Structures are given as C-alpha cells and as structure tokens.
C-alpha cells in the first residue's frame, strides 16, 4: 500500500501550527529501590494514594500504593526490569484509566487496555477510571430479569439474574471455566455484552478460550482482558477492576446488560498478597493483607442492576431519545423531575401523571443497565472453608459448587445441586421454569437420599425403585456437553418431560438421544406449542395439556440409538 504523503504532511503541519509550548511543571521523585514489580520513591511528597505516576525515562506507569513518611511505594504496571535506581518519576495527577466502548469489543487486551491480539491500536477517546465507586442503594433495583446460562442444571436450580453475583467454585479441572464460557456463548441472542477476565492463567489456556469464543461467534460481543501468569503481579491485581470498568461503561452510559467473568479471583488474591508483602504491609491470615476482603468486596459490589429512571413527557415524545431533563414537571430550581426506581415510578403513576394530561411516563434512555458478575474461585481438595473461598462466598449472592467426583463420574457440568444456591436468581426465573424447577429440586433431593440406600443392595419396594429410576433419568437429563447451551424454552420442555415421568420408560443410556430427538420433533412438528410457550413464558393448564399431548405423541416416534449412546 502506498501512502498519500501530502495528507500526512497536512496533519503534521496543522499540529505544528497549533503547537503552543507551555512551561511543563511536574512533581518528581527518584527511585530509591526497585524490584519484583514494586519501587520505592524518594520525593513525590504531594502524590495521592492511587494516583498514576510515570517513569520519565522508560514511559512505564505505576500506581502510588503506599504513602510513607519518607518515601512512596509504587506498584509498576509494565516492565520493571528496565527501571533503575535514580530514575525520575513524575506524578500525573490522574487516576489509572482504561479505554472503553465499542473499539474494545472483540479485542484481547491487557489490564491497561493495550491490545494483545495483534489487530492494531485501539482508537477511542472514551475511557473510565479503573477504580470507581459502586452504585448506592437508591441507584439500584432488585434483580428481576434472568441471565440465561443455557445450562439446564443451572438455569433450573441455581438461576442467575441480571445484576447478580454468582460464584463458581470448585477444585482444579472441574469445569469452572467451561460454565463461564458456555454462559458467554449463550448470550449471543440475549444482547448482553460479555467481559472475560483471565487472571494468572497460562497463555495457552487463554488462547484456547479466545479461540472457542471466536469459533462460536461470541467475540462479536465479548472483550477478553488478560494478565497471564507471566505478567507482573500489579497487572494481575488490577485486571478484574479493569474488566469491570469496561463493563460499567455499557451499564452506566448505554443502559445495556453486561456479564463479567473473573477467572479466577484466587490468583488475583495471590497477586495482591505478593504486592502487599513486598510493600511490607502487615500479613494476616494465610499471609494475606488485612484488606483482602475489601479488595474483593469492592470489586463485586460494582455489579448491580441499576434502577430505571422515568420522566413525565408529552405523549408525542420519541421514546428512543428520552433524556433525563425532559420532564414536563419541574423542581423549584428548574430541573426536570426524574423518578428513580420502582417505588418512585409507582408514585409518579398514581399521583403526578394524572396532573399532566396528554402526557406519559417514559424511561430515560440509558437507565436500567446491569452488570452480572461470575467470579471463579479455585479450591484445594474441596476445601471451601479456606480464607479466600469463605470471603467470596459471603460476598456473592450464591454459589455454583462443582464436584470432582461428579465430574469424573461423567456428570457434566459437575454441579452439586445439593449445596449450590442462588439467593436472588429465583425471582428472575421465567414463570414456566419456576413452575417445574420446584419439583425437580424435590425429586433430586429424594433421589439422593435413596441412592445411598440402594448402594447397600437392599430389596426395594416398587415405589422406591421407581423414584430411584426417575432420579437416575433426571441426572442423565441434566448432563450437557460443552459449547451446547440450550434455549430456556427447550430446557423447560425437557425438564417437564423428566419430572412428569415421561422418561421413566426410556432406557437410561438413551436419555440424551431421546432429548435430542424430542427437541427436533417439537421444533419441526409441534412448533405451535413451542411458540406458545416462548410467548406466554408460563405453563398455563391449557398449555401444559398441549405439551403433555405432544410428548405422548412423540413417544412412539423415538428411535433408540442402535449402539449405546448417540451424542
């Protein structure tokens, strides 16, 4: 490609014409010692905690971490090997910011927002500070919309709502990342922006995740932030905050729903511990610093379901453009009244709207976004009572617990439904799922109790045996291969079939084949029932009857696979 030289010259010329030299005043200090991603600085007496500083010679950036009587402790974001004793450091007067917005979508970046995927610079003027304050009570609303993971075991029994924080916890190699990646892939139709933050992982693992996201078309709406195990601890430490910031842009400024996966916070805690110890902050339990809880709680607190804001506008107003200052009713100071959250909205509907004839209540564009967090914690030998796991369990709104035993027994995803909970997600489930999930839980609980008996080889009565059989089939039904997220309507139909006993006659190894053929049947021959269910989103008695009839009609058509299981 040839360049148009005159165009380049003109750009440079205008820039030189407009150049105004101004006296550069900066506060400076000098490096006393440097190593392991931290530096101690003499000078910089006016620097603020958390302020970004710059090493004049190398251009590397750092953050003021410890302010001491005679020196300042910095964490170095970037290559610390090039920095040497005596180097000048200058204060920038700014907080650390990362680029946000559409320019970052589909990219793989480091925690400073610099591209790692070789696709060129990220060109944007949009940025947000990495550390920001979580929305307060008034700015939020309860979780009320589901975030579909596409996994039957999770969407039915530990449902996740938009704005919720659901922990994924389990030993190594139990499929934690697989759940997160499947959830991201399932957001394709859901209009959710996804951020995958990889902390302290192998570059090869991250490359594999990125490749599977790309393969399934998920990079169109996903940002991958990575600080691998080879990156210095400061980058690993700030990575989740940077990822959260990129999601917040969409939540606050565009009113979009977002999903943030932090994979995993155990490694972030270890990176923070390293920094804190090098900075000589006093070690606490397991040598973690005293504020390790705060490091995680302030991160996870930033996930939220923001309250919708409403204004009273003329009936002719364009709903897609409503701004927060459009309200026809004004406060004494002249500002338009904005109703925040469901309570104020109700007040507006009942009291204020009738006073303004020919007006309507309209949602302010860009309000009501959400940030759902899926933090991941790796346990050692199933030890959930270790320090970091208990901390994060207590911060989040529930956890999905993955068991190695289940994983190796072929139950994948290896969700232990007995101890996995979701504290708020149930409110967000679609009604149809809520209707069938209750009996599913009970069936499984009864099954687990009986399963222990059955292993003793005792003679069982018929009722017990049938309960056992039902349980085995439901467990079989909840298995799901990776990268095959399932639509929630499909989930409702198959789980309905399972809990109502339509599968009792199907041989256990055939359950998955049955499911596949049944879903195809419903799509091709009884799409009326499927469409009705998708529209109503709940199982009315009439619809339930239709669904049952459809299943009965399908039963004779089921062709058991000839040779064991067919995937």
């Amino acid at each position, binding site marked *: 490609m040839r360049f148009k030289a005159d165009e380049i010259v003109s750009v440079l010329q205008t*820039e030189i014409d407009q*150049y105004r030299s101004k006296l550069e005043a900066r506060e400076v200090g000098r490096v*006393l010692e440097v190593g392991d991603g931290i530096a101690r600085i003499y*000078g910089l007496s006016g620097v603020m905690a958390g302020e970004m500083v710059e090493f004049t010679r190398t251009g590397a950036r750092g953050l003021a971490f410890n302010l001491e009587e005679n*020196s300042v402790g910095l964490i170095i974001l970037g290559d610390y090997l090039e920095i040497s*004793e005596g180097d000048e450091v200058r204060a920038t007067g700014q907080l650390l910011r990362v680029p946000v917005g559409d320019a970052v979508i589909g990219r793989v970046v480091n925690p400073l927002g610099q591209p790692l995927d070789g696709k060129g610079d990220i*060109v944007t003027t949009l940025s947000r500070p990495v550390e920001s304050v979580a929305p307060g009570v008034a700015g939020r609303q309860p979780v009320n919309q589901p975030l579909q993971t596409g996994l039957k075991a999770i969407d039915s029994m530990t449902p996740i709502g938009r704005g919720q924080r659901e922990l994924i916890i389990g030993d190594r190699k139990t499929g934690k990342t697989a759940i997160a990646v499947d959830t991201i892939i399932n957001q394709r139709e859901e209009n959710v922006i996804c951020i995958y933050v990889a902390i302290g992982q192998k570059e090869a693992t991250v490359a594999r995740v990125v490749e599977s996201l790309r393969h399934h078309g998920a990079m169109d709406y996903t940002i991958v932030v990575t600080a691998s195990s080879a990156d210095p601890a400061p980058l690993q430490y700030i990575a989740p905050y940077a990822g959260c910031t990129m999601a917040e842009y969409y939540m606050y400024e565009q009113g979009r729903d977002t999903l943030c996966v932090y994979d995993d916070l155990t490694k972030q805690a270890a990176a923070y511990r390293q920094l804190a110890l090098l900075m000589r902050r006093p070690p606490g339990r397991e040598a973690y610093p005293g504020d390790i809880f705060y490091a995680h709680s302030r991160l996870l607190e930033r996930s939220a379901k923001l309250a919708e804001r409403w204004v009273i506008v003329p009936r002719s107003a364009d709903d897609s453009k409503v701004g927060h200052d459009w309200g026809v009713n004004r406060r004494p100071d002249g500002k338009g009244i904005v109703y925040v959250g469901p309570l104020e909205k109700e007040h507006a509907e009942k009291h204020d709207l009738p006073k303004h004839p020919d007006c309507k209540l309209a949602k302010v564009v860009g309000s009501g976004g959400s940030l759902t967090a899926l933090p991941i914690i790796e346990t050692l030998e199933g030890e959930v009572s270790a320090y970091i796991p208990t901390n994060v369990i207590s911060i989040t709104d529930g956890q999905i617990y993955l068991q190695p035993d289940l994983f190796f027994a072929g139950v994948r995803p290896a969700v232990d439904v007995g101890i996995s909970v979701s504290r708020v997600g149930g409110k967000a489930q679609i009604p149809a799922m809520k209707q069938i999930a209750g009996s599913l839980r009970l069936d499984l609980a009864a099954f687990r109790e009986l399963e222990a008996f059955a292993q003793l080889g005792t003679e069982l009565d018929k009722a017990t045996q049938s309960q056992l059989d039902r349980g085995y089939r439901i467990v079989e039904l909840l298995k799901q291969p990776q990268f095959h997220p399932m639509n929630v309507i499909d989930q409702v139909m198959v789980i309905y079939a399972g809990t109502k006993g339509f599968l009792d006659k199907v041989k256990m190894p055939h359950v998955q084949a049955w499911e596949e053929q049944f879903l195809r049947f419903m799509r091709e021959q009884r799409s009326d029932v499927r469409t009705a269910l998708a529209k109503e989103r709940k199982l009315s008695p009439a619809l339930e009857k239709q669904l049952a009839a459809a299943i009965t009609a399908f039963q004779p058509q089921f062709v058991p696979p000839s040779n064991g299981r067919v995937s």
Partner: protein
Amino acid sequence: MNQNEAQDLHTSTADVGEQRVARVYAEALLNAAEKRDQADAVIEELDALVGEVFGADPQLEAFFSSGAIGRDQKAQVIRSAFDNRASELFVNFLLVLNEHERLNLLRPMLATARELRDQRARRIHVEVRTAVPMPDDQRERLREQLRDSLRLEPLLDTRIDPDLLGGLLVRVGDWLYDASVRARLQSIRDQLIARSSYEIQSRRDRFSSPDGD
C-alpha cells in the same frame, strides 16, 4: 545521574526511624549553635567532616560507626583529632553523639540540619540547570523572580547539563519546572505521534492511495 544527585540520594535515607533520631540531634545542635550565633559555621564543620574527612578516609567513618570499638576509645580519638582544630561546640556535639552511640547517623544529621537551617533562615535550595553557563544578569533576574514567587530566599545551585540543548530547568523541592528545549521537542514529538496515529487509525482510507500496491 550526575555526582550531585548521587550525593543527594546518598544522604537521604528511607529509614524512618533513623530519620527521626537524626532530626532530634540536628535540632539540638542547631539550637545550641544559634545561641552562640555559630549555626552556619557548625554546619560547615559537619559538612567538612562528612564530605572531606570521610571522603578522604572512609576508614574513619567505619571507625565511628563500628559498634566493636568502645566509647572511651572513640572519645579519645575525637579529643585528640578535633580539640583545637574544630570549635568547642562541634567537639562537644561529637562527644555527646559518642555517649549515645549515634555517631553512625552523621550523614542524615547533616542533611536534616541543613534543611532545618534553611527553613529557619527562610531560605530554599533551588536547582537550576542550563545547557550553557548562565550570564550573571540572567541569574540575578531568575533569583528575583524566584524570590517573588516563592516568598523565600532562593539559594541557586546552578549546574550545566548540555543534554537540555537550550532553555532551563528549575527544581524546587519535589517540583520540576521544565522550560528546556529538550522537553519541548519531546512534547511536540509525542503530540505529533499521537495525532497522526489517531488520524491514521480513525480514517485509514484517507492516507492510502488507491493506485498503490
């Protein structure tokens, strides 16, 4: 880093405990000296000891700092070396330090004493760097202006740094005022790079000609 800066770094210590102790002694020394109107002289003596004597004979510093040598022995050496050669006040100061086993803190004490002396006399050290030696009238003007803006008596510490190319660089405490040609070239370079890469990335077609490649 030039020699002066190396020395600055060397006299500054990050050890907060040492600094605190050094401050106590430095303050006491200054107070005693001011009563006799010998403040500047005493600091000069301390400076000569740390700079010239220790510089010429590093073993002496090791001897003073060593815990292996008894107080009495050190006192004897101090008396025989400094009596009649240094002021009475200074010799007493060294003996007191010896009594309290603080002779190892002479360097931070010197730095703190200088700092305190400047503070009390409302003086401030200003480092001025230029590419070529500054004419006297310019230096006077700079001094005037600094005096007006800082409201303190500036003690100019001029250094020549050809790397600056032109202009000057003034350093007051932790603040650096950079009006050098080097800094201006650097800033125009950064701006040009940022501007052109932004233009190129935001409208790639503008710079590529269709007939090329």
